């Protein structure tokens, strides 16, 4: 039976020769992720499962404190402490402050997610790992607790929507622009309960970092997972990270897709998503005159070294607009060190940016750059919901690192071509 990549991974983990969309399966999980906010709830729930004392396999359970760390207040410190104690007692994989980073930047970098794996995580952006050809999806804390106990998860096999990107990227366009464009076309509920499979020449040309960025935002169209075929770039990325083995699954040519959406790369310019939905995207050239107060460059969407390089290239030898606070957040300690070695941090500091330790921080209105009433921020993060980064009357505009850096310099929403 012809199957998509997503279907093949699910079938293999359910011990079945084939699966079809709509089928409910019990699948074995290769990795269960939680951050401190989802873990603290999951720990409570785990304690309520009769007979559950130890997690099913401590090497397949990873906990990453990244949202409100380094602890922003007493409440957060209490949460982090409880989670740390659980991780140590259960001997799970655990990344402490100083060794940690933003979960979805960290796990691929550490080789903990690899092609063909089935990963669930107590964070909606777990779908990021489809960028390296894994099936990965976000769940809540109770699902995490149950997977800790059982080593399996129930899943409904999603229909797959194929997104085909034809042609070559225009100048300054990155994976972030492609996904903002695609989410705008699909709508925030356009892929609900579905898998998004990214294909075409435009995708083959992308770096693994850009693919991770795109898979990260599959959830912003409501998708269960986003996934990319494994190619030489993926294999090289994974080999650099780990010696551990993995399995490559390919979609069959005759596999059935719920629909195919074709994009012409010639139509896609650098994008900016206006408040208050990630689907409110338009070309940055059509943004109009909108002055800004803050820029955030980082997050699980765009906190990789490739993103920092793009931003630094634009900021080098220049100064951030005097009215703007520009906050740069490397995604992990490794990204931070690499940025230091490459001289990017010096570029940022000389351009009057602040450089933060890795944290999710401002993305979800936690800390490290909260907005006041009426303030406007261009951010390389993934959500611009009402109140997402602070005051209920603040505004978040989503963009890639090039638009973010260009806007930091000009003091208004602007594209890199305008510099």
């Amino acid at each position, binding site marked *: 039976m012809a199957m998509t990549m997503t279907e093949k991974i699910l079938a293999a983990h359910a011990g079945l020769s084939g699966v079809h969309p709509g089928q409910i399966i019990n699948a074995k999980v290769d990795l269960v992720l939680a951050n401190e906010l989802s873990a603290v709830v999951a720990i409570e729930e785990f304690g309520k499962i009769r007979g559950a004392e130890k997690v099913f396999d401590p090497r397949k359970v990873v906990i990453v404190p990244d949202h409100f760390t380094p602890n922003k207040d007493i409440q957060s410190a209490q949460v982090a402490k409880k989670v740390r104690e659980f991780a140590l007692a259960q001997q799970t994989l655990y990344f402490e402050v100083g060794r940690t980073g933003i979960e979805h930047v960290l796990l691929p970098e550490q080789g903990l997610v690899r092609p063909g794996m089935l990963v669930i995580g107590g964070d909606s952006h777990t779908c990021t790992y489809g960028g390296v050809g894994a099936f990965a999806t976000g769940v809540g804390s109770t699902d995490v607790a149950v997977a800790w106990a059982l080593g399996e998860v129930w899943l409904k096999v999603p229909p797959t929507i194929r997104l085909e990107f034809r042609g070559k990227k225009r100048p300054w366009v990155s994976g972030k622009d492609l996904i903002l464009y695609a989410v705008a076309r699909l709508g925030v509920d356009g892929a609900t*309960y579905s898998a998004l499979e990214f294909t075409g020449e435009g995708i083959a040309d992308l770096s693994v970092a850009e693919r991770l960025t795109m898979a990260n935002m599959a959830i912003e169209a409501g998708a269960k997972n986003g996934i990319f075929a494994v190619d030489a770039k993926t294999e090289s990325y994974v080999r650099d990270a780990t010696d551990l083995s993995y399995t490559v699954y390919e979609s069959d040519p005759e596999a059935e897709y719920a629909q195919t959406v074709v994009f012409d790369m010639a139509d896609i310019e650098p994008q900016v998503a206006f408040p208050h939905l990630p689907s409110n995207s338009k070309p940055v050239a059509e943004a109009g005159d909108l002055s800004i107060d803050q820029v955030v460059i980082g997050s699980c969407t765009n906190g990789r070294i490739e993103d920092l390089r793009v931003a630094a290239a634009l900021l080098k030898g220049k100064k951030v607009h005097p009215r703007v606070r520009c906050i740069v957040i490397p995604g992990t300690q490794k990204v931070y060190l690499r940025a230091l070695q490459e001289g990017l941090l010096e570029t940022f500091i000389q351009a009057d940016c602040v450089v933060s330790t890795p944290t999710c921080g401002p993305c979800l209105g936690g800390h490290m750059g909260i907005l006041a009433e009426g303030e406007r921020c261009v951010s390389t993060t993934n959500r611009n919901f009402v109140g997402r980064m602070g005051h209920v009357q603040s505004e978040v505009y989503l963009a890639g690192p090039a638009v973010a850096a260009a806007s930091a310099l000009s003091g208004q929403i602007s594209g890199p071509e305008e510099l």
Partner: protein
Amino acid sequence: MIEGNVWKFGRDIDTDLIIAGRYCNISDPDELAKHVFEDFDPTFAGRFVPGDVVVADANFGCGSSREVAPLCLKAAGVAAVVAPFFARIFYRNAINIGLPIFELPDAARYFEQGQGIRIDPDKGTVVNLSDGTSLQAVAFPQFMQKIIGAGGLLQYAGERLRGLENDR
């Protein structure tokens, strides 16, 4: 039987609106309930009457996987959420923690703010008590019914864990 008044919401109500990120380090459900829908309407928590029902348009609960979203709705006394469909993580979370949810095509079209609503969870019937319209919610898949029947995912997991251990 669930009976109360309708609190009407539009489409794409995200989990940040249900409970803002800044409160996600709170685990006490009653404390969370004080901030339910705060960024949507700061007066909501003070005005909401426990036992009332949320009726929303499509894609309720989109965005973050935060389980505190359905938890704080439940703690605030929301008896049920009715919508044409839910974002998938919210759907799982609601079933898992026992917040009653009902998929009702065009739900928002049949109800106005403040109207009376009666839901029979077993039959899936949803009645507008103000105008008498009787509607049928989408039935849960059999597997979900098994989880609901077991008393939630944790109970189901306990049974499953015993089964797996017996197999070993």
